[in-house]
């Protein structure tokens, strides 16, 4: 059977990592068609066509899909649903906004954050902040899912899928975009980085959070943060790792001054190697860390930055 996959496109650029991981996840379900929608989506479509395992790319380039407002984007997906048994997307904020709307339009349940595809109707997904893994079997004729990208490898290059135009759907015109505040960064993107260094409340200030950034830059790592660090204004909200922030699974995750609350662990406990630096040797983070270092982060982090 066939799969329609919503490509992750931001400002005309394909997020290749997230899209390729979703392609890898859904490829066993059938022939994969990637939809690239946006005010400019043609370059993204060309790039999506080069992902191995993509059979076809649909491009919907129209001002109404600029910034991927939920209502027009969901209307487009629902209008294309006909020939597909599965409609999927990487579990980004764009997809979490749109896919449940699509599912309800089709009168089916959405299956969010799929971490394993067992068969065409059976999927695993984490619940309770990742403290339980649920296996669900869908009774719906059509399955709408989002893919937890941290649980899958990215599909490689080498594809050469044809690109075709998708017919735009009627725009319900219920909302409009006013503006973006984008946190500019030269660092690797958090969800696709091979290494992540995260800071928590113990950093004490935005200025001192620079210690985390210095270590991250030395390691070529992305910077993450706990909710406490974000709420205190030490780091922007899109750096938050956890149940309600981003879910990452890098090769190396360094948690500095983070106690290890359930909600934070939900976003990083599938990392390959976890390092914890904390002055409290009873902190829960040490129960899941491969390597723990007890001591003052203000001394240990600069020392580590100097030695890696």
């Amino acid at each position, binding site marked *: 059977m066939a799969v329609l996959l919503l490509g992750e496109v931001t400002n005309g650029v394909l997020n290749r990592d997230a899209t390729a991981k979703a392609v890898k996840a859904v490829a066993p379900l059938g022939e994969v068609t990637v939809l690239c929608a946006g005010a400019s989506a043609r370059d993204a479509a060309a790039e999506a066509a080069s992902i191995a395992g993509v059979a076809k790319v649909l491009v919907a380039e129209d001002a109404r899909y600029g910034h991927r407002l939920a209502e027009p984007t969901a209307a487009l997906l629902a209008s294309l649903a006909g020939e597909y048994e599965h409609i999927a997307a990487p579990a980004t904020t764009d997809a979490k906004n749109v*896919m449940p709307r699509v599912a309800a339009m089709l009168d089916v349940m959405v299956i969010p954050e799929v971490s394993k595809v067992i068969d065409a109707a059976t999927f695993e997904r984490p*619940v309770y902040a990742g403290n339980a*893994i649920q296996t669900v079997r869908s009774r719906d004729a059509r399955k709408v899912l989002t893919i937890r990208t941290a649980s899958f490898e990215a599909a490689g290059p080498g594809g050469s899928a044809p690109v075709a135009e998708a017919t735009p759907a009627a725009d319900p015109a219920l909302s409009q975009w006013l503006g973006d505040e984008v946190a500019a960064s030269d660092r690797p993107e958090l969800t696709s980085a091979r290494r992540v260094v995260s800071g928590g409340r113990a950093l004490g200030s935005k200025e001192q959070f620079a210690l985390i950034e210095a270590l991250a830059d030395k390691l070529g790592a992305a910077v993450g943060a706990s909710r406490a660090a974000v709420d205190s204004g030490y780091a922007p909200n899109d750096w938050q790792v956890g149940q309600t922030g981003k879910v990452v699974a890098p090769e190396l995750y360094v948690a500095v001054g983070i106690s290890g609350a359930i909600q934070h662990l939900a976003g990083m406990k599938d990392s390959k190697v976890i390092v914890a630096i904390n002055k409290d040797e009873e902190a829960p983070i040490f129960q899941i860390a491969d390597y723990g270092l007890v001591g003052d982060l203000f001394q240990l982090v600069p020392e580590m930055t100097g030695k890696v």
Partner: protein
Amino acid sequence: MKILVPVKRVIDYNVKARVRADGSGVDLSNVKMSMNPFDEIAVEEAIRLKERGAASEVIVVSVGVRQAAETLRTALAMGADRAILVVAADDVHQDIEPLAVAKILKAVVDQEQPRLVIAGKQAIDNDMNATGQMLAALLGWGQATFASKLEVEGEVARVTREVDGGLQTIEVRLPAIVTADLRLNEPRYASLPNIMKAKKKPLEEKTAADLGVDVSPRLEVVGVREPEGRSAGIKVGSVDELVTKLKEAGVI
């Protein structure tokens, strides 16, 4: 303008969920339950809109077991005006799916005619993040999810949303659905006098059948298991030792 706020009774966020030995689900017997943290934020925002004169009445609604009445009393103590309980399950272990909840909420919206629905962005038990969006679809309304700032002005709501990469501001025509993210506000605590007063506020009880909604699940839960455990790590004595270990592991 009426505001409707759906609230959910869930396992308290501080409790670590335990998977039942038979793999049927998470054990919720004798576990502390509370209002879903995102729903507290939604209730708080609705009350603030009322305090600013932008809303006339705040109605809270919960779908689930009869004990969800406690959750509704909490919302009433925070400042909501009245409550609707839709009993749809006998057993606390039966989680009603977002699609069914959205259909029930649609029926409530059809009756109550609010101009704004403020929901939490996700429930911390099923982690679905779907009900608000599904309700918006069923009603054919606009949606503003993951809100960290909300201004209601005339016929529109201006909402700043927490998205990957930063913040996005959109304007959505009323009536609309907004879902609350963590940073929208800091919910108030209910004072003792308000908790006492809340006991006298109206709480109407209905059933899913009264509203004509079939709550049978579309997703059959085949099993629930513990996640793979991590093997115990070691404590190192110095930065040098840590760097050596990380080099040996090939991660730096």
